[in-house]
């Protein structure tokens, strides 16, 4: 990624402390991205749809954890694409432009360019990409069209309590630190996430993955196999050329001479 993009990288800062679980973000996302409603049922929790879906780019996770003070602690966490700097999905995607980096640093997708291979799904450390009925990748794109026009992502725009903030990534991080949040999740993970979380508690309490990583096979493939396939071919061609020039092809005459 070019330096100026890193410098101007935008991000969403999620502050679960401020989230009231009203889920206006879920609706605003659907509204802007024109996503259909999903037929769900109540599974004994407020959380619905149960997880991200091709038509649900973000959800609020509701979890009840023990509390010393109260009967329970009820946690609300916005789950969505992390827009990783080192994005497993982008690395593994075989179709150019299907997953791409916007000028603001978002990992966006192009429905038409997706070849439905689903490799991205399996390379994502956060289990984010989903596939729609047409088998095309579908996930949060940080409202690339809105932020490209200098508007806030739809979810951020609607959030009443500032649990979602959008802005310059570095500024968001330093502001959150100044406010005294113990952990800025995603500050450095995977080269720095584009969705960062400010936690007072341990991120694990909210069910966040500790030290997220791209699957090692993908890293191995990306770091070694990909170059090897190129250098391997190049090497063979070079060796053949060298052989042809230095030793040359098999010659009947020489053999004859020898036989004689």
């Amino acid at each position, binding site marked *: 990624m070019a330096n100026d993009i890193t410098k101007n990288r935008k991000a969403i800062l999620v502050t679960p402390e401020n989230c009231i679980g009203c889920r206006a973000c879920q609706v605003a996302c659907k509204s802007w991205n024109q996503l259909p409603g999903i037929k769900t049922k109540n599974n004994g929790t407020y959380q619905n749809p149960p997880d991200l879906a091709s038509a649900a780019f973000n959800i609020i996770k509701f979890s009840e954890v023990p509390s010393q003070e109260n009967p329970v602690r009820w946690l609300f966490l916005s789950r969505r694409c992390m827009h990783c700097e080192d994005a497993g999905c982008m690395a593994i995607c075989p179709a150019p432009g299907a997953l791409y980096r916007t000028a603001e640093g978002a990992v966006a997708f192009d429905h038409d360019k997706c*070849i439905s291979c689903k*490799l991205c799904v399996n390379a994502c450390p956060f289990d984010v990409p989903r596939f729609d009925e047409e088998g095309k990748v579908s996930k949060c794109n940080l409202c690339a069209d809105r932020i490209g026009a200098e508007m806030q992502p739809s979810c951020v725009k609607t959030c009443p309590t500032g649990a979602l903030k959008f802005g310059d990534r570095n500024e968001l991080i330093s502001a959150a630190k100044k406010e005294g949040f113990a952990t800025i999740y995603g500050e450095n993970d995977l080269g720095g996430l584009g969705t960062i979380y400010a936690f007072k508690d341990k991120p694990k309490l909210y069910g966040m993955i500790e030290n997220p990583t791209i699957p090692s096979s993908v890293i191995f493939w990306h770091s070694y196999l990909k170059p090897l*396939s190129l250098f391997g071919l190049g090497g*063979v061609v070079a060796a053949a050329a060298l052989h042809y020039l230095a030793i040359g*092809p098999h010659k009947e005459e020489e053999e004859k001479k020898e036989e004689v």
Partner: protein
Amino acid sequence: MAEMIRKSSVDEIVNHWILAGSCILLMITGYAFLFHVESIGSVLGGFNTMKTVHNWLGVVFVLSLLYSMRHYLRDALEYDADDKQWFKVAGGYLSHKVKVPPMGKYNPGQKLYYLVILVFGIVIAISGFGIWFMKDNMTVMLISHLVHNIAFCVFVIAVPVHIYLGTLANPGTFKIMVSGTMPLSEAKKKHPKWIKSVGKV
């Protein structure tokens, strides 16, 4: 006109071309996926079509590969002392001065090459099918992806060597791949043990 001897049957030649063609196209499209070569994608009408082409070429390739066992497998599994000696002199490719031992229909380099292609061909096909059909199983998908790419590396190294040796490095060899026949005189020199076995001596 010199007396000719048939080295390859017609179906062998046809199958070899199918195998070779699908393999090369698979490699080209494979590279296009790996390095996002959009020009290759455009030739095939975009990456979506290219994916379909790649997948079905894979089917063609593996069927052709399995069929080729009829032609090559038996030979590829038989080795003798001369074959051992052949390796010692590196098939005579590193120097034209060394004495290359008498060979059968195929030299051990070709035979081993075939085994490599057969094994990795099956591996790349199975892993390809894994990526194609097991999209929702993360373990299968990731292992398939890795294996497919390892096999790909083998192919991109082995296949060009084979092509070089079958063309520029051994002038005249390419003609056999077209006609299936070679001059008996030449065959006597290059494949004395084979000629002997077919009783043309």
